Structures are given as C-alpha cells and as structure tokens.
C-alpha cells in the first residue's frame, strides 16, 4: 500500500457514449485512464493492490448521469489544474469531470454520507393524467411492499420509505426513438433515499410500482446491472408495455448538502 497524500472528490457526468457500461467495467476503465494520464493514484493494501478510487454509489448500466461523486486518493500531491490536465489525457469517452474538490484525507468515507439521489426519465406508452394519479397513489400509500431479486433469491422490502418525492415532468422529446414518436410519452422525476439501514431506492422499482398501479407491464430500457437482459413483469397484451427511455441520475446528495431536509 502506498501512503495517501491527497484526496480529491471528483464530480463527474456520464453521457451516451459510456451509458452501457456496468459498474465493474467502468471501474476498470477509470483505472486505465489514471495510468494513461500518469496520475499517482494511491493503491490499496492486499495481495493484488488496486488503485484507490471510491465511488459514492455504483451507476447502473444504461443510466446517464450529471452529478456523480467519487473520491480519488493520490500518493503524491497535485494541484487542481495539474490533476485536471492529467485526467483530460486519458478519461474514457463519455465521462466528463465537472468538479474537483480537495478533501481532507481523514474525512469520513463517502458512501455512508450519501442520503439521496434524483432521477428523471421519459416513460413511453402512458398518458400524463393516469401517471399523475398513479404517482399520487404511491406517494399517499403508507407502505409499498415489493420483492426485489438478488441473484437467485427474492427479498421482500418496503419501497415507500425510500421514495422521497415523485412527480411529472415534460418528456424528453429528443430521446424518443423515431418509431415511437406517436406513442404517448411522459416525463417523470423522483428523489430516492440512499440509506445505510434501508438500502437504496431504485428508480426502476418505482416505475414497476407505477406500472402495477396502472395494470401495465414494464419493458425496461435500463436497470440491468446484472446484464441479464430485459425484465418483463406479467405482460398484459392489451396495451403496450411501459417503456423507460433515457434514464438520468441528475445528482447524488450527501448528508451535509441535504441537512434537515430528510426526515427519519
């Protein structure tokens, strides 16, 4: 293990070109970017040392992002312009560093500080009016019991405490495939809790819950970090499935940034 001399908090965005990377793939890509840029990254302890880069939250395959957070630990101190230049040398296509903050090396780990994340997406094959009603019903519910699959197992949990906010937005017309131009499309925005105790809210779970309210199937255009392909929940043949188009994680929120806004 190399000694840690500096800790940078990177704020970064992910565009279309890197959209279809899994979390593990993107970690490997970043490590190569650091080598290309000759960035003196500190390495972890252990039999096979890894560069010390800690993401606040894994980004799902298929998800775009505008304000992600990662801590990068360096074995040598660099100035911000120097680090920015070196990052520019080798950053993978589709990733943009939008902010750099010198963080105290001894500051608490980043992941446990994460409390919430904002998402937006466009839903195809659903009218705004009915979606708004369904969203209202979800927000008004006391409990939203759901099952989530993890590998072979199925885990029961309550989605409601993870759902902080949910409302409609205008649809992202530019994102619509040409052959779906006539389908009804509605924008959706949500804030989901990230909690050490309760787990993290997943946007596709909220969409699945909405679909359940509407009696629709979901044809998800994302959300497969296990790369197992599209998920279909009870296909009801009458209406086309609810389809998620171009989901974006708008921003991650740390505890200090949202102080007092989260209850419980």
């Amino acid at each position, binding site marked *: 293990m190399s000694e840690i001399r500096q800790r940078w908090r990177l704020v970064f965005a992910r565009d279309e070109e890197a959209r279809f*990377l899994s979390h593990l*793939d993107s970690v490997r890509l970043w490590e190569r970017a650091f080598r290309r840029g000759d960035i003196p990254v500190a390495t972890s302890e252990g039999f096979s040392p890894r560069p010390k880069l800690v993401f606040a939250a894994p980004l799902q*395959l298929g998800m775009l992002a505008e304000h992600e957070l990662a801590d990068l630990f360096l074995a040598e101190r660099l100035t911000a312009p120097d680090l920015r230049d070196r990052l520019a040398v080798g950053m*993978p296509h589709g990733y943009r560093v939008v902010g750099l903050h010198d963080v105290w090396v001894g500051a608490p780990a980043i992941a446990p500080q994460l409390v919430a994340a904002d998402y937006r997406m466009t839903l195809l094959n659903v009218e705004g009016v009915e979606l708004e009603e369904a969203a209202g019903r979800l927000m008004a519910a006391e409990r939203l019991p759901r099952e989530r699959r993890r590998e072979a197992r199925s885990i029961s949990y309550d989605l409601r405490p993870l759902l902080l906010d949910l409302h409609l937005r205008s649809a992202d017309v530019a994102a619509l495939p*040409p052959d779906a131009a006539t389908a009804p499309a509605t924008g959706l925005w949500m804030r989901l809790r990230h909690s050490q105790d309760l787990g993290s809210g997943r946007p596709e779970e909220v969409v699945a819950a909405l679909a359940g309210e509407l009696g629709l199937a979901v044809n998800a255009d994302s959300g497969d970090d296990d790369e197992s392909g599209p998920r279909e929940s009870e296909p009801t043949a009458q209406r086309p499935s609810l389809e998620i188009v171009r989901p974006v994680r708008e921003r991650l929120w740390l505890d200090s940034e949202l102080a007092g806004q989260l209850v419980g």
Partner: protein
Amino acid sequence: MTTRTQGQPPSPPHGGGPFHDPPPLPPPAVERILGRVRKPGRYAGGEWNSVQKDWAATAVKWCFAYPDLYEIGMSNLGLRILYEVVNDRPDRLAERCFAPDTDLQTELRAVGVPLWSLETRRPLREFDVIGLSLGFELVCTNLLTMLDLGGVGLTTSERSEADPLVVAGGSIVMNPEPIADFVDAVVLGEGEDVVLEIGDVLESLGWNRRAEAGSAADGEWRRGVDRATALRALARIPGVYVPSFYRPQYLADGRFDRLDRLDDAAPATVTARIAADFETHVRGIRQLVPNIGIVFDRAQLEVMRGCTRGCRFCGAGMHTRPLRERAPDVAIEAAEAILRATGYEEIGLTSLSTADYTYVGEVATELRRRRPEAILSLPSTRVDAFTVELADALSSGGRRGGFTFAPEAGSQRLRDTINKGVSDEEIARCAQLAFDRGWTAVKLYFMIGLPGETMDDVLAIAAISRRVLETGRRRHGGRAQVKVNVSTFLPKVMTPFQWDGLDTTEEIEAKVDALRKAMHAKGLVMSWHDPNSSLLEGALGRGDRRLGTVIRRAWERGAQLDAWDEHFDFAAWLEAFAAYGLDPAWYAQRDIPTDESLPWAHLSAGVSNAFLLRDRKRALAARTTADCHWGPCSNCGVPDATGFACGTGAQGPRDLLVAVGDDGSGWQYVGPPGDPRRAGRVDLSATPDTGANVSADRDERRGWPYDLLGTEMQSKSAGLKGLASLVEAAGGESTG
C-alpha cells in the same frame, strides 16, 4: 478533414466534403435497441483509441467485420493492427463491427434496423470495403449473418453495384474455397501493407465515388467503377485472390479436378504476403481498449512472427514463415508505448512460441526495470526448463495458477512423427521444475488422432500425465493437480499432414473412452473436444467450393455461432450436406492420395509442395526435421516463393539481428541481408555456418536469461503482480 480520437471535442457530423456521407442511424433508435439486449457494451462503441472520422472528407471507408462475438473479436491483435494502419492514413477510415448475439439479431430483424458499425453507426452496406477477419472455420455462418443484417448481398453474384466489396483475410483463408462464394477477394498472408494497396487501387479507379445521379435505372446509386473492373484490378495485387475469376472442375466421382481461369487478370498461383519491416517497425501501438471484459483483455506486442519449430500438424507454424524477430530495442520501446497509449495493466509478448524469441530475456528484464508495475505474460507451447525459469522469473511474488505445457503426443515415437522434439524425460523434468517453483497445477495439451497413431500412443498420454501427477504429489501432496486437454488432430492445409484424414467419430470416442478410464485418478482432470465439431471443422478446413451452398443452407436452417457449444447445431449441418449429396466425412476423414489435385493448390503460403511431401515422408519414418532457427535449412521453399531471404541454416535468423554496438556492448538491430544499414556491421560470410556450431552456441547461451531474470526480478517483489500465463495461447492455433 476532422478526426476525433479521445479527448477532443466531437467533429461536426457533416463536414461538407466531397465523399459519400450517408446519415448515421438515429441515436434514440440505436439506444432503444441497446437497452433491450444483453451486454449492450458490445455494440455501443466509444472505446479508447477508437477513431471517428468525418465521412464526407474521407475517401475510402473500410469496415472491419469480425464474424464472432465482441469478446473474441476485440481480443484479436490483427484487428487492432489493421485498424491503426488504415486510420493512420488521413484519407482512409476504418470502423468495426462484430457478430451480433442472437438477442440483438432478433431486435434488428423485428424493427428493421440494419447492423451498424460501432464508430459512427453506419449500416455495413454504406462502406466501400468490408474487411472480414476469419480466424476459425466455424465462423463462416456468422459472416452470412453479418452481411445479411448489414444489408449486403450474401454472394458475389448477388451483390449490387452499390454494395461494398467483401474482402476476407485471416489465418483460415489459406483455403478460402468453402467461403469463396461469399467473398469478392481474399488476402493471403499478412495484411499490413496490402490493406493500403487495396485502398489505393480502389480510390484510383473511383470505387469510392458515386456516379452521376440518374445513371442508375433501378434507383440504386452506382459507384465510379463497376465491380468487375475493380476486382480485375485487385487480382493484380500480389497476395490478393479473386475467387470468381476461377471455376473449379470436378471428376465424375466427385473428386476435385482443376481450376479454370476465367480472366487474364487472375494469376495461376497466388502467394501469401509478408509485411515489410517487421523487425524494426511496430504497427498497432494505439490499440483498441474494450469497454467491457474480453477474452484476452491485455495489450499485445508481437515479438516474433513465424515459427521454425516445424511441428507438422501446425498450420500457423507452416503458414507464417519466414521467422522474423523484433529487434530488442524496438520491442522494448513499442511495449512501453503501447502500455502508455492504452493504460493497460498487462502486456502479452506474443508469438507462436515466445520462449523461442532470441531476446525474450533482455526484453522482459528491461520492461520490468522500466515498468515494474506492469504485468508481463508470455504465451508459449515450448516444453523445457527455460520456459519454466522464464515464467518463474516473471511471476515472482505473484500468484501461481496453472502451468501449461504442450507435449502434443503421448509417446516419443509419435512426438517424433509430428516433429515436436521433446522427450519423456524433458516433460517430467519440466513438470518437476514447475512444481518445485511453486505451481500446484500443471496443464498439459495433447492431441489424439495424429497420423500413425496407435492405441498405445493414446494410452501413453495417460502414462505421462500420471507421471506428472506423481511428481506434483511428491511436492504438494493432495493439492497437486494435472489438467489434461485432449484435442483432436485436424489436417490443416499446406502442412505435411494436409493429406491425412481426421479420425472417425467412433475412433475418437473410443480413444477418449480409453483415456478417461486410464486417467481416472484424484487430481487428474481431462477435457476433450466435441467430435462433431471437429468433423465440421475438418470438412470446412479441407473443403472445396461446393461447400459454399452447404454453408448457406446450414445458415438458412439456423446454424450460426457454431463455435459456441450452446449454439452448435450439428443436425442443421448434416441436413445441409445431405441436401447437396455431400458428406462431411469424405472431406475431413479421407486420406487424400498425394498425387490427387487439391482444391487449394493454386494458393501458396510459401512452403513448397515438395517440402511438404518430403517432410511427410520423414514423419512416417518418425524422423524429425531440425528447427532451422538453430539447425540446418530444411529447404521449405519460402525464400523462393516469397523472395524473402530468411538466411536460415547458413546464418540463422538470430544472426541477422544479433549485433554488438561499436563499443562492444548493447544490442542493436542492423537489418536483414541486403539492408544498407548492415554495411560494415556484421560480416555474414564470416559467420560459422554449420548446424553444430549454432547449436552449441545456443546451449552456451542458455545461461544468460536465468542470470538476468533470476536475480534482478526476484528482488523486485513490490508491485509485481506476476502472471505465469505461459499459457492459454496453447489452446489456440498452434495446437491444432
């Protein structure tokens, strides 16, 4: 002209240049499809060192289509090299496309979207040339899938004037007859130079230009020159074979008779190309770095091309002569440059047998010194102490997985027959050494069904495997493991064994059964190949042009991705053969009389037929042929056929490169014979030229790599994540 590589802002989509510039597929349409398929990273593009150019400003456009899944295709060094060679030219562009998995095929057909290139998402049919890379017989159906989904006519005769030219290359095209219907031209041998020559010829003819609007009655656009003229011009390029200019004739009993030449432009014999300047010039520095995990996920530097071991079953060894070695300083600089340009943590020093590379010690040592954190891996099939020592030095302080040897045959006699010059004692010693140095698992590669094989030879595989296991037990007790991989001998064209038949399925099964019984022991694991898959591979490998319709029929019946066990549909293939009254067994299993005409006789890899016959005769007498790296020249015919003076025997290739600087130290490359840089450096005529001297010299020199590697390497434990993968390449071309 705008070009984008990494780190630069995107170029404007339409630069307004004079060249063909169709619109790319709309991003939302592509992304919607990608959102529905497994591993969409395979089709998304955007990899590091991928290149996007302005179509309107670029004259000739290639799409390199690799007819297998992304994970296989992106591992291919040839693709990485040619991609750079073409894209380095400002007036050329190369994009990529890989075989889509079945789920993407379904999506594409459902929505009617054509298969696209990864870089700028243009349909395949919009390119000027499709470059097909064929590394394995069983990918031939995938190329049909790709052409079909890319909107390109499947056969030469079905293609429209607007369709791209389909040009194939790669290790299996030494016999391209089975796929001849589907390709407009075939490049034999090494592609680095000829890929540019093809582009130049096509541009000079106006192939990339669109003719005046309205010239086409059918509404299709036309090119500046017709296909036939373009093909006639390509046929004049050395190493380029245009199958449609030849028509095969068969005898009444079904045997191949002869080829009729249909066009004056078509030469009687097409000889494989050899790229210039391999020794001193490295292409493929800015190698593509995949976004998702692939099979060989590392940088690669080819340190040597060709192989002089002369294993008689090995197509690669026979087809890639003459041997050329990279000058050590060139290799070291290139390896560093590749690591820098890719960010890869690991680099493979590749060749058919890297332990035979004269400078492997120097290069590995110097790379360790310069890049102590990088992992080095060296594929090798050689069985000797040097190989173990080398792997040991490279993996000091690191993990020890399995150590791989490829003795290829179980008995001494049969190893002599195939010219794999290694004794039982050497195998045992080698295994002992590997176990002593800390490896607990040894992997052994063998073949069954070799010419002249008896059941005793087969059972000898079990005997030597058990002996190796015993060695391991004494050292590591119950932890010791021996994995035995048994593949089936397949006759490869243009090898001394090209006439010898594949075993029948019953014979293979009987041999495998006998081996399984004889191998039954704790710690001994055996794996073997599907005999049906071998049969098809053998038939396609030695097939003639009649197999084109068979391939098409099998594909229409659903055969594809045949190299993948879960997709292989043998019944579809049998039905397809039967539909045309052909039999895969006749192609694969027959011992062909040496005086019979061969469907690939008009093509040459360099080695002469006389040599192949001579070497086969020695094989049948279990006599070995010397490795011409050290021993005398075996007169394989390559210099005559290719004009490449390899200098073996009298001088030995090593002497071509070994040079000592003026001050008496250091390594310097001084060029091949005839190179003016050699003047005054080395007097070749003064070099002792007897085989014995050269051999003695080799033995004497065997000490140095240990010294260099042993002491210096092992002291550098920090950061050395060694990789003892002298390995997986043994599963590739060289074993079968």
